[in-house]
């Protein structure tokens, strides 16, 4: 019985979590150093999905670079497109017409709903509540069908264009979307019934991954991750773009900055998005969906290209030379995408191509926060912490 006399030998264990792991929501690799169940050190490794979007954009015209923004955060491509288009529009000094602005606001909020319900689905799945996943994918399907009805694509849409949107919305689309906004608040309640008072859910989310307001600001967090800590910063309110200054909505804030509060924030945002969509449909103005300056920036309609010489020339020049040269200068335009602040910093050297296009991706900042959230916590909470910051690695790695 000599073994019992000896003091117990312990040593730290290094665990590699990912890049292929169901709970890392993409190809994220975490190297965890564990002391028993406690995480001593957490090192995120990213870059597995690096495609060099910023470098690629430098070789493309402003029109061609639009689909690159789809592939950043591929589950909320509409908002990324809008962010890119706004930046380019601001650089060129043009503005989309009113109807296009309202349509963009509608599609942005639809994207927010679809992104947040994927988030609640996968987050709950990670923490052991599978049913929410099955419920919320039903609503996501409805939204994707609506996107398909709108522009023919479901995921990588490229529907918003520089100077407006690709095509007008149909009455059928608006009717179906209005019906969705009627139904959806009931569905949110369904999700909440499943997890809101669930003791396991509360135990795994309350008081986990706490980050104070001062710290959150210093880290440069954005979106629901920042607002969960009670910081009132929403770009839709601070720098209103599109039709956000013409609709009423509230910005939900958390208090404790833990996983639970961020969950509550996102659930409330779903309700606010429904409110915004309803107002936009009710107030949707009539008129064109593309700015009158459009020939210099966007392709003319196909039927006009085939019938009219001017349009054919425009089409030819746009394809071969790119849109009219942008004025020399630089611009930073940020939009509130479901994950947080998506900023485009564009440096123009006076040609038709961006000299430098920087994408400030919210997921990149949030992944860097992971060591702060995980270290000192339990290994089981690593999954909760990855889920709560709502990352998409396509956007993080660009």
């Amino acid at each position, binding site marked *: 019985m000599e073994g019992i006399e000896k003091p117990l030998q312990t040593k730290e264990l290094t665990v590699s979590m990912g890049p292929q792991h169901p709970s890392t929501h993409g190809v994220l690799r975490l190297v965890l150093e564990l002391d028993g169940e406690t995480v001593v050190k957490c090192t995120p490794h*990213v*870059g597995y999905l*690096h495609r*060099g979007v*910023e*470098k*690629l954009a*430098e*070789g493309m015209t402003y029109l061609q670079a639009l689909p690159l923004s789809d592939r950043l955060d591929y589950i909320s491509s509409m908002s990324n497109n809008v962010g890119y288009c706004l930046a380019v529009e*601001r*650089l060129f*000094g043009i503005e989309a017409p009113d109807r296009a602005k309202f349509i963009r606001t509608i599609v942005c909020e639809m994207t927010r709903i679809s992104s947040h319900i994927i988030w609640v689905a996968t987050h709950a799945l990670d923490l052991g509540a599978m049913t929410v996943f099955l419920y919320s994918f039903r609503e996501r399907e409805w939204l994707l069908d609506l996107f398909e009805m709108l522009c023919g694509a479901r995921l990588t849409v490229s529907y918003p264009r520089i100077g407006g949107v690709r095509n007008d919305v149909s009455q059928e689309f608006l009717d179906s979307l209005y019906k969705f906004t009627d139904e959806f608040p009931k569905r949110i309640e369904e999700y909440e019934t499943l997890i809101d008072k669930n003791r396991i859910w509360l135990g795994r989310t309350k008081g986990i991954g706490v980050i104070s307001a001062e710290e959150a*600001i*210093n*880290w*440069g*967090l954005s979106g629901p991750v920042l607002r969960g800590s009670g*910081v009132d*910063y929403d770009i839709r309110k*601070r720098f209103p773009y599109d039709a956000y200054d013409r609709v009423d909505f509230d910005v939900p804030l958390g208090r404790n900055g833990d996983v639970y509060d961020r969950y509550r924030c996102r659930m409330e945002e779903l309700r606010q998005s429904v409110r915004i969509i309803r107002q936009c449909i009710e107030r949707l103005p009539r008129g064109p969906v593309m700015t009158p300056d459009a020939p210099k920036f966007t392709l003319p309609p196909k039927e006009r290209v085939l019938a009219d010489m001017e349009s054919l020339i425009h089409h030819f020049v746009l394809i071969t030379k790119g849109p009219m040269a942008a004025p020399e*200068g*630089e*611009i*930073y335009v*940020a939009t509130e995408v479901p994950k947080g*602040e998506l*900023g485009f*910093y564009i*440096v123009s*050297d006076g040609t038709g191509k961006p*000299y*430098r296009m*920087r994408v*400030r991706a919210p997921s*990149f*900042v949030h*992944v*860097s926060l992971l060591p702060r959230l995980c270290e000192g916590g339990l290994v089981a909470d690593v999954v909760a912490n990855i889920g709560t910051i709502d990352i998409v690695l396509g956007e993080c*790695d*660009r």
Partner: protein
Amino acid sequence: MEPLEITERIKERFPDEVLDVIEFREQLAVVIKKERIVELCRWLHDEPDLGFDYLKDICGVDYLGKKPVRFEVVYTLYSLRHRHMLRLKAAVSEDAAYIDSVVPVWIGANWHERECYDMYGIRFNGHPDLSRVLMPEDWEGHPLRKDYPEGGPEREWQGFQEVLDKAQKLKEFSWKG
């Protein structure tokens, strides 16, 4: 505070640091010397009526052949309290491609600076862990430099051969051997 007031304040406090002020589409950029960047950022962060508490972004820009000083490190700052924005641009030359890290001021600068180092090879002095973030650790060259070809370098990344070899080895694996 109005953008022009902010530049006046900076000029007043750091008269020798400001090289240029550029305004474009109501956005203000202040070009500064890189030597006292941390002191300047600390002052911008702490000064009560400036209060730049929120760092939105840090990125590099390569002006190869366009400007006498090749690189610029661009800091996009925002004040949550006072709701004003400022862009700082620090000029960094090619033969002295380093600048002080602002991580002591905004901890969120950590990964942005790592990415800037990864993509442009600009070193950040005093950074807690300056290593590549998006590219593999043994990658040669800095992809976002203008003299780096868009199709990548001629040579293959040596790690690629290692991955292929490993895959081949796993394919041939058998329980007997």
